[in-house]
């Protein structure tokens, strides 16, 4: 049995992961340590995260049995960490292996990765069965169109540039903002036709080539000509961008299904599948039995994929397994928490879920800090902010407190036992433990939980909470349910505008002190600011 380090340090979203004897021990994204979001920090490597993982694992990188780097990687970075003794794996192989082996899928499945390009590909498709993976298609970056590039370059040009020439919205960071505006837009034949001149699909091929630069030219020109002067026009563009993404991707998947009809389970990876609306449409395809999106679906997930590939090659991971959670980041002891609290004007008491449920029901905003921090873009119960979901006004109130300007609706966490009562589809529940998929809300619940429902299309991006996998989160939900009759809370990531999700107690306490939060739960304690 082996110790394996995985590293990704390409153009954005670097991370480091560590697996021991086939078990995931630790995965850390660089942005959590540098405190700069991936889209603000291109060309950085996994320098700091590798040191953190070393501390947590207790095994120096050079003493590990294997070190695996995901392409593209600079030799200088790899050599600095490893003394020249390391493996390299392909970008999209790491994506596909990571997704399939954490999918828990039995029998036949397709593992599909799609992003703006890594290594030389934008996309790979693997046929998977009982732990065996066979490459079916690989799409070369220089001869294929890319939906991810369509998004990345739309985002980075639609709002124009600041006085220093920097994009107002950034690729690899603000795609969610654009996607969040789509439901408020409408179909526009002209917008759709313009987007179709940038990317189209036929016979398992996306074309024309070079979607990125073409998109930049077209959207930049539209911006310059004043097509995006108001939010309404951006919403309309976003709607059509989302529509063409769904139309082409569903056509592609339907064509794949014709070729491989026995493969009805799909696992996905790559930045494109951060698009929860697209994932919803895929989940609704009648022939699809189940979909799974790896929680760290973007390039931040590659370091884990690299570890899994190596462990599979060594025979230490042979079959797909299910993740119980993604709390693979840094943890803090009670002693560290109390020591940190002494640096702030706070008081604390023992955590009592009944009391907190009451405060939530009274409308208080509660910071939630438990376990090691999450791996991937979503706050799933380690670094979250919780609020009752019952008020229309919550969106404005929370955005004000968190200094955010997002139009994206906030997401609900839902007790597993009530999931099917609230949402229409009942497929792909495992992936919804990681908030990677939208669901249609049942009519009777729309008015009860308005703060977590998209106003225009009545969808939500729920996190299904299981008692066994996430007991603390389940417990607070349960207590709130007892008081309110609602087995749902609003969960948003513990960060303010433009910063990554927090890491340590010293990132959390200031949010209590500046009035962002009413109460802060860290480990076994509830902190409040001293009057």
């Amino acid at each position: 049995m082996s110790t394996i380090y995985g590293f990704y340090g390409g153009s954005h979203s670097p991370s480091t992961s560590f697996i021991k004897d086939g078990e995931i021990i630790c995965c850390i994204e660089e942005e959590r340590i540098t405190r700069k979001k991936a889209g603000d920090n291109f060309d950085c490597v996994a320098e700091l995260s590798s040191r953190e993982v070393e501390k947590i694992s207790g095994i120096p990188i050079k003493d590990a049995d294997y070190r695996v780097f995901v392409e593209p990687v600079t030799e200088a970075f790899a050599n600095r960490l490893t003394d020249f003794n390391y493996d390299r794996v392909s970008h999209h192989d790491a994506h596909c292996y990571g997704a399939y082996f954490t999918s828990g899928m039995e029998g036949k499945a397709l593992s599909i990765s799609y992003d703006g390009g890594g290594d030389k590909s934008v996309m790979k498709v693997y046929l998977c069965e009982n732990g065996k993976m066979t490459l079916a298609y690989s799409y070369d970056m220089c001869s294929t169109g890319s939906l991810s590039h369509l998004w990345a370059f739309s985002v980075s040009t639609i709002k124009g540039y600041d006085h220093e020439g920097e994009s107002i919205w950034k690729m690899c960071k603000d795609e969610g903002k654009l996607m969040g505006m789509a439901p408020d837009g409408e179909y526009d034949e002209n917008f759709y036709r313009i987007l179709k001149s940038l990317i189209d699909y036929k016979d398992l091929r996306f074309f024309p080539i070079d979607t990125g630069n073409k998109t930049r030219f077209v959207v930049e020109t539209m911006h310059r000509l004043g097509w995006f002067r108001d939010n309404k026009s951006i919403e309309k563009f976003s709607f059509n961008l989302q529509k063409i993404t769904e139309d082409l991707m569903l056509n592609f998947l339907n064509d794949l299904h014709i070729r491989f009809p026995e493969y009805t389970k799909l696992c996905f990876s790559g930045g494109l599948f951060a698009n929860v609306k697209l994932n919803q449409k895929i989940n609704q395809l009648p022939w699809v039995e189940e979909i799974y999106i790896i929680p760290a679906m973007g390039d931040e997930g590659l370091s884990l994929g690299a570890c899994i590939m190596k462990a599979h090659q060594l025979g230490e991971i042979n079959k797909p397994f299910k993740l119980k959670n993604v709390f693979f980041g840094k943890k803090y002891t009670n002693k560290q928490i109390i020591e940190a609290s002494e640096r702030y004007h706070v008081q604390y008491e023992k955590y009592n879920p009944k009391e907190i449920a009451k405060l939530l029901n009274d409308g208080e905003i509660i910071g939630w800090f438990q376990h090691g921090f999450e791996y991937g873009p979503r706050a799933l119960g380690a670094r979250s902010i919780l609020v009752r979901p019952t008020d229309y006004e919550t969106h404005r109130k929370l955005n004000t407190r968190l200094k955010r300007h997002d139009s994206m609706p906030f997401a609900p966490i839902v007790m597993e036992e009530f999931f099917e009562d609230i949402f229409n589809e009942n497929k792909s529940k495992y992936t919804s433990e990681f908030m990677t998929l939208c669901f249609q809300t049942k009519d009777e619940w729309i008015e009860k939980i308005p703060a977590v429902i998209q106003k225009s299309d009545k969808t939500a991006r729920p996190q299904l909470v299981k008692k066994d996998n996430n007991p603390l989160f389940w417990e607070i939900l349960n207590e709130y349910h007892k008081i309110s009759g609602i087995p749902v809370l609003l969960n948003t990531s513990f960060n303010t505008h433009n910063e990554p999700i927090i890491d340590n107690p010293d990132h959390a306490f200031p949010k209590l002190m500046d009035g962002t939060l009413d109460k802060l739960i860290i480990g076994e304690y509830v902190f409040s600011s001293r009057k």
Partner: protein
Amino acid sequence: MFFQVGNEKILIDFNDGITVRVGGPDLTYFIECVEYRNGDHEPVMLESFHVTSNCDWPYKEFRVPIEFYMDFELKIYKFDPIYGLKLIFNHRYNDYDQVVRFVIDTKNREDAELWLKKVKEYKRKNYCKIQIFSEFEDMDSESDTRYQTRDITPYKTYRIGRFPKNSNDWKTIDPRKEGMIWYGYWKTIWSYQHPRLWKNLSSEEIANDILGL
């Protein structure tokens, strides 16, 4: 070469890499250079960006500095408010019946003779009119009649020789690629004059590389 397409005036030149300029009523035009590798019908991306037509900023011209032979195609697009990205002009490299200049850059007679043979081989393959400039007068006279003059702007100029990397070869990537240059979308070359490092190649291989033989 000058082309007029509607209101757009297009100037292309292949004598020092690939250069394109566009003038017209729009502020910007999008130019793309794709390559057909190994006889493939499907092109691969080589380079693209948009150029400014009526001022010098940010890009007054489109340029691919690669000088050696490639089967490439240039495409020029404009933004059309109805159709989006609209192709207004394309030109695939084709020197059939065109004047092509070959600069044989060596003082070594033996090399020059071998490279002249390669030039003739290129002519037989592509049916172009050749114009030769070398250190040896008798070789220059092998040019097709009427074309032995510098007054003519040729369709394309090839320089055959052993050229060091120059300061323009700025995209040299990390040492694992052994000094190769990453160009556009993943095309790796040794320099803008040589697809491969010439030091370990024969004279014949060097000419074959440069002329795509």
